[in-house]
């Protein structure tokens, strides 16, 4: 005769079998394990890998990071009472699905699920995620997340992702596809640049809905120096500076320029043989910097996701603001001017990226990102950035986020792809964007902020 204990234990045995023989954990136990910051980091790094493979241009890449992190953030906020949804704080972003009251959730799982769902939807080579996700979600089960909680959390993450994707569908991205920038060949205006003479990237990017900003031209930089190649003219002086620096680059300047290249697609051409070197975009690079310092500061998952989200908003608003100006001023690249009027054989150290010169995108977005990160993690945090190492770009150390942003900015002058005023004015613009994001996208509840 079977004991009563047998009958009681049966369902548990079955459950244990189903969940891979883990023993049931308490929410406190499994959430502690699930809230491992490195899991979210791994998901983000996987996204970067796909962004690099699929060759997204810098603005488009920033948009992908922003929606994925917004989803990751929104699905995680119920986990921490000190944090709040960004509904009503980002432009036209409304309240999303709420977790069911009284039910248990593993919000860290919901968060990574939401992140991955958006990442999958906005990128192309999804087979990269397939192999990643299988063992990835298995870990949460090993943490002891009960099946029903697992399913519910996954479903919640997907619901948040859907809410974010619906939001994404209305940002005009789709409407701006299939148009090209019209090259007029007027003196001093942008024309396609060697060696690939690619079309200008994203000529209608300013039509995208802003994130924290009210309008795309809210932080319009001062006017660029008017094109004038008369000797002694301020514009001419800046051209001369690019040329002179380019001709006398030091090893250190070369290393700086190369480190911050962040060109998504460099075509290497040897006769008919061509192959592409692909790298993180500037946005991807700043996600990686946030990760590096976040790890160093031992940020909680909530803090890390907050950092990613706010940084990516700074990046997207930075790109919208910057691109708005790029196609307004439609400024010619130094390579074009120097080849035409000064030295037909001069080639910049970096390949000129395919869009108008003013202002420097890296200056705008790096400063915007650094401003947000400084606000979140503090100033004067020294760090070593080895995230570019695997792209063959070495390792560099910085005194602070701002120090890194300053170097990213000046690197474009060394690289021979920007004039100095595009750097300086771009940095001013980026700082304004960053501060605005900090001010508008308030992630922490007032009580916390007041404390």
């Amino acid at each position, binding site marked *: 005769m079977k004991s009563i204990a047998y009958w009681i234990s049966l369902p548990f045995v079955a459950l244990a079998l189903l969940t891979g023989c883990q023993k049931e954990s308490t929410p406190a136990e499994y959430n502690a394990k699930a809230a491992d910051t490195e899991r979210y980091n791994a998901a983000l790094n996987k996204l970067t890998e796909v962004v690099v493979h699929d060759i997204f241009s810098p603005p488009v890449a920033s948009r992908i990071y922003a929606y994925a992190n917004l989803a990751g953030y929104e699905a995680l906020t119920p986990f921490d009472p000190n944090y709040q949804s960004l509904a009503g704080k980002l432009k036209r972003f409304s309240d999303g699905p709420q977790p069911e009251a009284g039910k248990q959730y593993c919000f860290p799982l919901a968060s990574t699920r939401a992140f991955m769902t958006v990442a999958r939807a906005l990128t*192309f080579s999804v087979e990269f995620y397939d192999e990643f996700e299988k063992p990835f979600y298995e870990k949460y089960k090993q943490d002891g997340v009960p099946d029903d909680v697992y399913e519910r959390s996954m479903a919640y993450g997907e619901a948040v992702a859907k809410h974010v994707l619906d939001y994404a569908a209305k940002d005009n991205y789709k409407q701006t596809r299939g148009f*090209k*920038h019209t090259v007029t060949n007027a003196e001093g205006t942008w024309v396609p640049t*060697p060696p*690939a*003479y*690619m079309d200008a990237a994203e000529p209608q990017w300013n039509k995208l809905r802003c994130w924290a900003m009210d309008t795309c031209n809210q932080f319009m930089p001062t006017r660029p120096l008017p094109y004038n190649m008369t000797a002694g003219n301020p514009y001419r002086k800046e051209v001369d500076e690019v040329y002179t620096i380019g001709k006398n680059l030091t090893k250190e300047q070369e290393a700086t320029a190369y480190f911050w290249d962040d060109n998504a697609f460099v075509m290497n*051409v040897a006769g*008919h043989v061509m*192959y592409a070197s692909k790298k993180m975009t500037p946005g991807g690079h700043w996600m990686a910097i946030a990760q590096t310092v976040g790890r160093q500061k031992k940020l909680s998952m909530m803090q890390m996701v907050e950092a990613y989200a706010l940084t990516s908003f700074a990046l997207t608003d930075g790109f919208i603001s910057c691109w708005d100006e790029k196609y307004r001023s439609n400024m010619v690249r130094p390579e074009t001017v120097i080849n035409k009027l000064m030295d037909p054989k001069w080639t910049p150290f970096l390949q000129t990226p395919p869009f108008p010169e003013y202002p420097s995108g890296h200056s705008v977005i790096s400063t915007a990102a650094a401003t947000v990160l400084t606000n979140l993690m503090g100033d004067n945090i020294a760090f070593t950035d080895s995230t570019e190492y695997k792209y063959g770009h070495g390792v560099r150390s910085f005194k602070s986020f701002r120090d890194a942003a300053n170097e990213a900015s000046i690197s474009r002058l060394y690289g021979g792809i920007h004039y100095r005023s595009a750097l300086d004015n771009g940095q001013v613009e980026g700082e304004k964007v960053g501060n605005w994001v900090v001010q508008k996208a308030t992630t922490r509840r007032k009580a916390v902020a007041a404390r």
Partner: protein
Amino acid sequence: MKLWPAVLLSSVLFYACSQRTPLFTKTNPEETGVQFTNQLQETETENILSFEYFYNGAGVAAGDLNNDGRVDLFFTGNQVGNKLFLNKGDMHFADVTDKAGVGGRVGGWKTGVTLADVNADGWLDIYVCYSGLRPDSLRRNQLLINNKNLTFTDRAAEYGLADSGYSVQANFFDYDLDGDLDCFLINHNLKNYQRKEAAVMRVERDYNAGDKLFRNMTVERRKGGSTATPLFVDVSEQAGIKGNPLGFGLGVSVSDLNNDGYPDVYVSNDFVEDDYLYINQKDGTFRDELRNRIEHTSYSAMGMDVADLNNDSRPDIMTLDMLPESNARQKLLPWPDNWTVYQAQLRNGFWHQNMRNMLQIQQADGQFAELGQLAGVAATDWSWGVLLADFDLDGYKDIFVSNGILRDFTNADFVKFSDQTPGNNVLEQIKQMPTTLTKNYIFRNNQDLTFTNEQKAWGFDESTVSNGCAYADLDNDGDLDLITNNLNEPARLYQNQERETKATHYLTIKLVGTQDNPFGIGATVEVSQNARTQTQERYPTRGYESCSHGDLLVGLGNQPGTVSVMVRWPDGRVQTVKNVNSDQTLTLSYRQATANEPASKTATDAIFSPGSGPDFVHKVDSTSNFDRQILLPTQYSAAGPRLAVSQRNGQKLVFISGNAQQPGQLFQQLTDGSFKALPLPGLTKATTNDALFADLNGDGQPDLYLANGGYGVAEADRRQDQLWLATPTGYVAQLLPAEADNGSCVKALDIDRDGDLDLFVGGGIKPFRFPADDESFLLINDGKAHFARQSLGRLGMLTDAAILDINRDTYPDLVIIGEWMPVTVLLNQKGKLQAGTRKEYTELAGWWNRIQPADLDGDGDLDLVVGNLGLNTFVRATAEQPATLIYDDFDQNGTLDFFMSYLIDGKRYPAYSRDEICEQVPSLRKKFTTYQAYADATIEDCFDEQQLKQAKTREINELRTLVLENKDGTLIPHSLPMIAQVSPVYGILATDFDHNGTTDLLLMGNNSRMRLRIGKVDANHGIVLSNKRNWQFAEIPVDKTGLFVRGDVRDVKQLGKTILMGLCAGKLQAAQLNDQSHKLASKR
């Protein structure tokens, strides 16, 4: 009609025959003894990444080296030694390399080989080129002088020909006509420079990369000059030969391309550098006149050949490129099709170049029309050597192309997604490049400017990697055998079975030249048989890195009989031999030639002579319509200028349509033939698509109506049509009903037979919304030029209309045409036109541009000439395999997405690359994450069933320009000679040009602004077709028409004896119709 069964029977027999034995059979190397493999060893230091030309292969030369009457074979090896095979007869060869001492310099990288009797002793010598990542000492070219005993000695240094540049091929010919053979050498660079540097590099001279011309000083020495100088002297610079570092010469052909008796040189250059067409200036110098004579060239031009393909005694040019033929490979390998990049290339000073083989058919002295796409020979994959020769002996030269690349390194997935990181193992990286073998191509000449691919029937159904190629009658049986030098596989010897299997006739011609040129290099031979004349020039350097130095061989078809042979030696002496029997070797000696060419050329009066027209230069703005609709087939903004003429009351008027760049202009022709501008108050800078003179207020004066619009005109008020009434004091603007349609054409007709002229205005493409169409409408006249608008609805993307009473009910009817629509008749129902009662000729659905009524059969009613896209693009559409245009806003983003596709084996393949289609509908990038995934995708793979069901589809099945016979109100199509299909037709003039009582046709057109993949179509320089009655037309050659106009003509109108041609983005052209034209012989 009685002929048909016979033709059918013979073609069936022919087919059955060719089924049994292919024209060429591959021989077994062990049986022939020709055992040679150009084997490559890839190493860490020497490979395709370190040396761009690592896979370029090597050459083969065919010539009789021991004067035993049999053609021997010499192969070069890049890394392996060269080989010489002595022809022992009956397709048996003996390897005599070692004894002959011709294996080549150890450690050298051998490339091209040329046979020439350099020391003029009657024995062929061998010149071998060297290149590669090797020091200078290993790169000196070798001149292997024939010791007359099957041994050879390298005497290049002594002769001044030991050039150590990166050499590809030499070509020996007598450029200064002093009697001895000079040498043109093509070299290449190691580095592919950026095109932005071109301007500076073009003036540089690079010893290693630049081409060179060496002058043979034999004659000068004999005359008492110094014998201290080397025999050959580098005269490149003073002779005007470019030697810049951009040169990547892969082919060099010599021919008298402008028919002035002096040999000219064409150099085909790989990569971005233009090809060079060096015209001999007859004073020891050359001038590159490519741009004056050739509209566009291959981009990465490889090998080339020059010979007369259409038997008009004018040499034609074919250059090779890398465009694959199949849909899948076209989509896997990137195909440069970026308007912006192309414009940058032009701005950087390069000529029009596109990635495909180009077939340049000579039209007049040294003027060429490119019609490779019409001919069907544009895409032969990664091609190296081309040979133009009559392989089936039918009297027309065919085309052989050797091709293949060891690794498909331009595979787009490799380029974009192999994710190479710097520092990876080089050999590993190379191994990742996919390998695809391809079949060599062989095309039969259809004798009508088109060619048929005979890969299968002629025995080339084998995938190989072939580089060098040569032809020669190796078994002395009267047909040409083929030899290829292959990479990493045995060289091939293909035996021609034409003479073995059929009684086809031939004539072999052996030339015995002068003391300094024993083989008669540079002589021209014409063989005339009935009405047909075949021409061959004796320049043996042909194919790629190769040489075909056998005797000349002429195919005479299967009709027995004698032929007449004329030879013209380089110095102009000629000899004609009549009644020559076929199937033998005819020896022609310079000694028997007479000094002067018989005066055969009598000047005939041409139809046209140069005329003077109004001073008007049409301009187009530089904005690209592709910025707004990236898949647009052409730049619709670059339209016009159409012309309107009036000859009422003896007053000759012409209005030239304008656009936003400059307003149109009204001119009056004065009695002295000159033109005077007349003011047209209120005329703005509107884009006028069509203009019309007609008396609209019944005062007997020509009023002027302008149909305004424009694809790129966004402002509605700038599309408003305009009307001016002629008054005694000048033109006065008259108000019209408000409209904003993109009116494409305007015609006057008294629709209601009330005695005044009403107007039809056709609607064209909706601005920025291709393929949506704008409304067409009637303007009903109250007799005083007050008009009431009657909408006819949307009738299609109309381009033109014709008025004629097609059903003879005395009410004028309307025939409308347009892009992607059938020829459509709108019958006038006793004064009413209704779109609902239109008759669509669905079998005549085309890409129509112009329509012109004319009585072509002299039966008193009006027939029609309809100008279509033509066949000289890669677009194909027939009843069996129509082209389709499917459109909808598939991704619901507010823009119209449209996709042109072709039916291949019942499947609809989109006509765009993965990048293009994904740029239009970005969600497709998710479906096609690789180029491989898209390579075989059909339209059905791109969209789901529901989407396709909702989408609209248009279909076309006829691309030819046609004449339509009006037979009791029904239109019956008749075809025109193939020459009418070489370009889109935008201008039609019908009149009796040759004064034989029938209405002839002048067709003009071209389109230089189609998307690059469709191509710059520019082969029409003014085609005059003589009406031979019974719907037969024949081309009148350019030298008899006297008309040669380059560029995009958009309208042709006649004003008295003046022919006016509206040139898009150019000066208005004029020609004078001569009064006393003789009856002219037409081409066929």
